């Protein structure tokens, strides 16, 4: 049998797509944070959480500004000087001196506009949460990283301190602080500062123990880098993900604690207000002005929801499971 050999010519082939084959689109290099962001925004819950939190932050900034009343302004009826305590008043619906005025959430028992107070309270709560968590992150992170990096005796001593600090319930710290310090925002912040750094330091230490055996650490040590340089310049950026996740979960704790302390009566002092103190005054007037307790509770719940969703989304985005990819 005679074999004919067929020589293929260029015309036999056809390019299935006319893209530039010199760039690999399937395995395009993607920075770490870009990947995290993509995973985060693909998660519907996380996006809902982010929108909620941003909306609340925006309202906390703008709410008191756009309101015609100050948060501690007592609104009186000009006819008889009585304070105005009433529920939701639609604009322009009523007759009388307040016709056309809007109390979106009503006014409280002392005639203060609840819309303004709610957002002012949300502002205070958020400020407390962000300030304390930020400081706690710095303290806890440094503590944990240093403890984990040096190991041995240093780690041993530092961990014993953590153990003792971790064994004191927050309530006991608050009760002792309440004797030494005046009530108010300062007390809440100090109480949170004293307790929230511990969780952060544990996470940082665990991350450090994972990281410090890696080659790049050995490499920079061989090159003569100082310990502090290795800890804060080389390892810290690689541990930031879990720490941010922990922060996201600490913020709800801080908001809860603030609400709790203000409710108990050692937090924010009148006429200042926070979410917790608003819930407390709502509780005190619940039988006469029951609508008063709703706005702060709803804002509190939405804040918690938002931050928890963000935290969950962030944690999943940092360590995506294979099936989600």
């Amino acid at each position: 049998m005679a074999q004919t050999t067929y020589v293929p010519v260029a015309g036999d082939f056809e390019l299935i797509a006319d893209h530039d084959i010199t760039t690999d689109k399937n395995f395009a290099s993607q920075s770490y944070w870009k990947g995290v962001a993509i995973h985060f925004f693909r998660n519907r819950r996380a996006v809902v959480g982010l929108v909620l939190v941003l909306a609340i932050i925006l309202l906390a900034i703008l709410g008191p500004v756009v309101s015609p009343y100050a948060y501690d302004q007592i609104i009186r009826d000009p006819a008889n000087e009585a304070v105005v305590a009433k529920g939701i008043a639609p604009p322009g619906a009523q007759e009388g001196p307040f016709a056309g005025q809007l109390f979106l959430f009503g006014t409280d028992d002392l005639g203060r506009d609840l819309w303004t107070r709610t957002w002012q309270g949300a502002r205070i709560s958020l400020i407390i949460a962000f300030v304390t968590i930020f400081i706690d992150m710095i303290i806890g992170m440094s503590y944990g990283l240093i403890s984990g990096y040096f190991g041995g005796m240093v780690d041993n001593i530092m961990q014993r301190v953590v153990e003792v600090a971790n064994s004191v319930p927050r309530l006991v710290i608050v009760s002792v602080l309440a004797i030494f310090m005046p009530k108010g925002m300062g007390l809440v912040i100090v109480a949170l500062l004293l307790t929230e750094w511990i969780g952060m330091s544990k996470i940082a230490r665990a991350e450090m123990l994972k990281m410090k055996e890696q080659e790049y650490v050995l490499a920079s040590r061989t090159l003569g880098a100082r310990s502090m340089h290795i800890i804060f310049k080389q390892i810290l950026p690689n541990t930031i993900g879990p720490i941010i996740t922990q922060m996201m979960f600490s913020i709800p704790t801080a908001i809860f604690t603030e609400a709790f302390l203000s409710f108990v009566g050692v937090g924010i002092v009148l006429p200042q207000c926070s979410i917790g103190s608003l819930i407390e005054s709502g509780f005190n007037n619940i039988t006469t002005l029951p609508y008063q307790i709703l706005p702060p509770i709803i804002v509190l719940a939405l804040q918690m929801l938002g931050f928890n969703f963000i935290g969950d989304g962030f944690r999943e985005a940092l360590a995506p499971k294979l099936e989600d990819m």
Partner: protein
Amino acid sequence: MAKYILKRVGLALLTLFIIIFVLFVLVRIMPGNPFPSERMSADQIANKRAEMGLDDPILVQFGRYFVNLLHGDFGKGTSLYYGAPINTVLSTCISNSFRIGGLAILEGAAVGLLLGITAALNKGRFLDSFCTVFSILGVCVPGYVFLIFLQYFFSYRIPFFPYFFDPNRFMFSAILPSLSLSLFTMSTVARFTRNEMVEVMDSDYVRLAESKGMTGSLLVRRHILRNALIPIVTVLGPLIVDLLTGALVVEKIYGINGIGKLMVDAIAGEGVDYNYVLALGILYSALYIGIMLVVDILYGVIDPRIRVASSGEGD
């Protein structure tokens, strides 16, 4: 195992001792006068101070206090209002608080487990979504807020339950506070159980059991639930600790004469009685450390790998 437990107990006791010492010193160096001085002459104050031994060196005072403490005696309050021996005041409070707290834990764990199991067995269906929404709600809204609503609707609008706690009808009036106290536990346990069960149901050994022909409740009980329960035991400890905090506000709202309410009085009350702060601080710390200790030991009992790992770490 015995060595492990002994070491844990020893460490816990040492920690507690340190905390008691620091608390004692802090409370003693507190500024101010423990006696209402406007009504007492200088002589009376001096007598009272001598009587209570406040002029001795602080270490001597601590030694005396600690020996009394070992005999189970918290001493006396200094103020007029709370002047009775602290032990008598505490004993009623503790019994109230513990019974309500215990109820709350039971309700929370039982309902939470049930919800979680139901959700996992109906994964992706309505009951699952319901469980998810419920557990989100329970985490986002503090228990005392639920109590405020329950109290408003079921004690005020529809006066079925008592508005305030009534020690004579304990079980009946404990329903609302224990229920609202348990909500956080309930939702956390439900979420945890569901996630753990879903994970275990996906594992190879469950698939093996299924391929052997095992189905139904036996599979759930023998293979799934057993393995899913391990992590749940460990979340219960911290949840009980959270309960201590929650109980504070719940007791305040519902007028329960418990240690939480006493603590609120100590934290917020004007003219606070320092001896109560000290006693409550010690009590809370001991509770907290005790719970943590039990969880630690349970953890080691349930899962031997943890014990090995923590003793291998060299601490």
